[in-house]
């Protein structure tokens, strides 16, 4: 038995998330064809982050878990950002 009320995501929601993810994939491909030089990588990474957010919140169900899960993943991402910043500061200003 589940003491907490279980949230059941509908098939329709999953389908819409999938369609959005596929659409974003084709936006990425189109954008890299147009070639915005330096901006290309940035745009590709922003779109990838949006896709990752959709997967984490919906498919991985974070939207409906207790806030403890969100705090944890926030901390992990913060640690990763710190590692990136420290490494880049070393490489760029050595």
């Amino acid at each position, binding site marked *: 038995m589940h003491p907490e009320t279980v949230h059941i995501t509908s098939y329709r929601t999953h389908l819409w998330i999938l369609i959005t993810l596929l659409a974003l994939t084709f936006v990425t491909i189109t954008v890299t064809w147009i070639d915005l030089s330096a901006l290309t990588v940035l745009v590709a990474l922003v779109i990838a982050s949006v896709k990752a957010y959709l*997967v984490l919140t919906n498919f991985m169900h974070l939207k409906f878990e207790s806030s403890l899960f969100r705090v944890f993943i926030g901390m992990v991402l913060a640690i990763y950002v710190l590692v990136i910043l420290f490494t880049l500061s070393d490489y760029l200003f050595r």
Partner: protein
Amino acid sequence: MEHRDDIGAKLGMWVFIFTEILLFGGLFLVYAIMRSSYSNEFHQAAHHLNAFIGTINTVVLLVSSATVAMSITAVQKGNRRLAVILLFITLLCAAVFMVNKYFEWGHKIHIGLYPGSDLMVSLSHGQVMFFSLYFFMTGLHMFHLVVGGIILTIAMVKVQSGTINADRYVLLENGGLYWHLVDLIWIFLFPLLYLIT
């Protein structure tokens, strides 16, 4: 009375996923540094990757992620038959991904492009870095795909037998989380390796 803690089981799975995120995160960091040091060589080397196969594999993985998520919905609603079908579709997608990878890697190995080959040694340092990262990151990703496939096969058998049912399905949820992680990594690998030409 048996002790059960589904939240705890999921939290444990997430902690494991965090270590995976940091593992691949380290590789992405190496990629970022090397790319900024050898941007021209990375651009040239990326031309050799087959963006078409990469795109197909992206679509296949996204679909497989959605079918896993839907299989959980099916189990929660008590429709185990549909859940088994959806998980089977997921495994088919995984097989398609592997076959595509076989042709992709097979072609590169055929023309002599693999770590330690004469061709690879003759390339410039930046290109060697790109192809080394390409083989290592897609290889490690593929390894995760195989493990995820095994976990989901076990989950599928258990759904079929009724061990996983509308009342207890945390194994399927955790298997699903692992599968979505595989998808998550590919979401970043695909544009960074295949689309930066």
